[in-house]
């Protein structure tokens, strides 16, 4: 789960990571009031979940409250387009009004899980403020990494090592140590999947501050963090994906093609998309229905696919293990009997309780196209979608 910059900063501040003074505003009037309260020149920053906001015009400077109100008015309500939003952009509903910083240096600091050694790894660079992935690709030696063993925790020497690698010394190094320690504690205690400060700024007067902050949280751990779960902003998510989650389907990603897919297991779902592409088609979505043993969830999956106007054929590919094929078959039948499925449906079933599933489909006499294996299923779905498109 992602949160906004202002939420990430509030959280980090509670872990002694210094952040600029600032306030959230939901109207231009509130932005003026925030600027007034701060009493210094401010930066007005669009609060959306995507990065790259500055280039898209989502971050503006203001010397006084009048200007703050004016630029906040320009930013709020805009469809902010960045390299992470897609071409349609994301509606800006609020801004963060913050003290402007006199920047002397821009650093980079983050923690992620390194799956190759199964440990959190802290990454630091003196080349902050720009696209860190470019830095990592072009000059990997400028990214300094340190794995942190959770049984020993973050130790001062680690901070010294990374801080000195970033060229810090004296009081600023001391501040950096505290910030790293706070970032690690926040990461661990709040079950983050990513904690990133870019840039971590050193000001002209020698203060170290998180000028931007990004925290992502492990969805699997939200059950033990009610405070974090409450920060979720569904406005930032795709409405069809939100609807899918509310209907009990956690893994739905809308794509741009016209073949709707319902598959069990993320790997098989990706492989099914690959097979569709190789057969000359284009998937409308990724949908992993999970280890489903509920007829209702299958019906719901159909509801989501048929809510997508691009879908011209539906491919059901289920290989039952823990999931039982007869339950899936019953769901396919119920969904069609409920109506609303106006596109051809291709069904490929295999695995646990296959015979029972086959019998149910057979006896239903519904016009589903049966496929014998994955390749056959992909070909039939692509063909069905082509015919449906031609008939339009």
């Amino acid at each position, binding site marked *: 789960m992602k949160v906004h910059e202002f939420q990430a900063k509030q959280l980090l501040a509670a872990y002694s990571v210094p952040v600029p003074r600032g306030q959230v505003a939901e109207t231009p009037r509130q932005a003026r009031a925030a600027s007034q309260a701060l009493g210094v020149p401010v930066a007005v920053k669009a609060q959306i979940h995507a990065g790259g906001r500055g280039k898209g015009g989502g971050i503006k400077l203001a010397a006084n409250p009048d200007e703050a109100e004016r630029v906040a008015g320009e930013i709020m309500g805009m469809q902010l387009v960045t390299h992470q939003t897609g071409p349609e952009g994301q509606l800006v509903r609020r801004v963060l009004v913050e003290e402007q910083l006199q920047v002397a240096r821009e650093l980079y600091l983050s923690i992620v899980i390194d799956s190759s050694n199964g440990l959190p790894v802290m990454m630091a660079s003196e080349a902050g403020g720009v696209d860190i992935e470019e830095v990592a690709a072009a000059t990997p030696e400028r990214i300094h990494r340190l794995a942190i063993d959770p049984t020993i925790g973050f130790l001062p020497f680690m901070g010294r090592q990374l801080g000195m690698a970033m060229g810090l010394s004296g009081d600023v190094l001391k501040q950096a140590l505290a910030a790293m320690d706070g970032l690690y504690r926040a990461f661990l205690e709040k*079950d983050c999947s990513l904690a990133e400060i870019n840039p971590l700024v050193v000001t002209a007067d020698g203060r170290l501050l998180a000028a931007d902050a990004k925290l992502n949280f492990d969805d699997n751990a939200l059950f033990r963090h009610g405070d974090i779960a409450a920060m979720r902003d569904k406005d930032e998510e795709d409405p069809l994906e939100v609807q899918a989650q509310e209907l009990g389907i956690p893994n739905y*990603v809308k794509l741009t093609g016209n073949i709707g897919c319902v598959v069990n297991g993320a790997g098989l779902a*990706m492989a099914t998309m*690959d097979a569709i592409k190789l057969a000359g088609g284009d998937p409308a979505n990724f949908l992993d229905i999970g280890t489903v043993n509920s007829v209702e969830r299958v019906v719901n999956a159909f509801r989501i696919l048929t809510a997508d106007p691009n879908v011209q054929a539906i491919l059901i590919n289920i290989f039952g*293990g823990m999931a039982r094929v007869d339950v899936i078959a019953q769901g396919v039948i119920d969904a069609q009997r409920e109506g609303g499925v106006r596109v051809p449906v291709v069904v490929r079933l295999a695995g646990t309780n296959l015979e029972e599933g086959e019998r149910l489909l057979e006896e239903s006499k519904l016009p589903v196209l049966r496929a014998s294996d994955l390749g056959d299923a992909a070909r039939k779905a692509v063909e069905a979608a082509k015919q449906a498109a031609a008939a339009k």
Partner: protein
Amino acid sequence: MSILIDKSTRLLVQGITGKEGSFQTRRCIEYGTNVVAGVTPGRGGETAEGVPVFDTVKQAAAETNANASLIFVPAPFAADAVIEAAYAELPVIICITEGVPTLDMVRVARFLRGSGLTLIGPNCPGVITAGECRAGIMPGNVFSRGHVGVISRSGTLVYEAVAQLTARGIGQSTCVGVGGDPVIGTRPVEILRRFNQDADTHAVVLIGEIGGSAEQEAAEYIGAEMRKPIISFIAGATAPPGRRMGHAGAIIAGAAGTAAAKQQALREAGAFIVESPAEIGAVTDEVLHNFQVR
């Protein structure tokens, strides 16, 4: 021979009285697996699926000589269950549970390092040695006995691949679903190492997916030490970059995470790359024929 589990495996099931735990235990027993004990705290003294239930893994292991554990407990308690099995020194621990918090697994994996115990999973279909022992949730009837080892990060793709193999008369030695989470107990390269030493395994089908660097690690080992042919499919070649596709491991992070990078690394190491998921059986058939191993 085979790897991890076989006829001599004495399986214990943690969470045996739960809905999936009991259903899958029954399937394991029907397959011929020697399930010797179950554990559900507070239910000690009962029987489930004809198997004695104990309150703790320690008691169960002491009384039944169990030597492997299969875990179905809910995600918030999965780490506890794995460590309980480790304290009882069960050499093979297989955790099916989906949705375990990543940082729980960080601690578990760190704890197990150097212990000599093997954790498979979590978020996996388990392990099966065809015709001998099923410790997992896979549909047993698609597996057949033979000499191809199978490794996969995805559960249902194991079934897909194996069904294609079996349909062509290609049997399997052991099939291992290592799990789709970012931090897992045993990475694919470690399973490859075991297959390399297993006389019963003549070739290996390695199924990877986008995200992470597990395939590159495997490629490095294959290039350096693998003496058996490797056939590999990488799922997600057509997935749009930057989108999370269910598995946390399937987030494309940097160039190493792409299907193209993984395929290239494996190809350069001498593996045979299958482009289409529908061709895993066909390509394996061809490779086995060319190498004259079966």
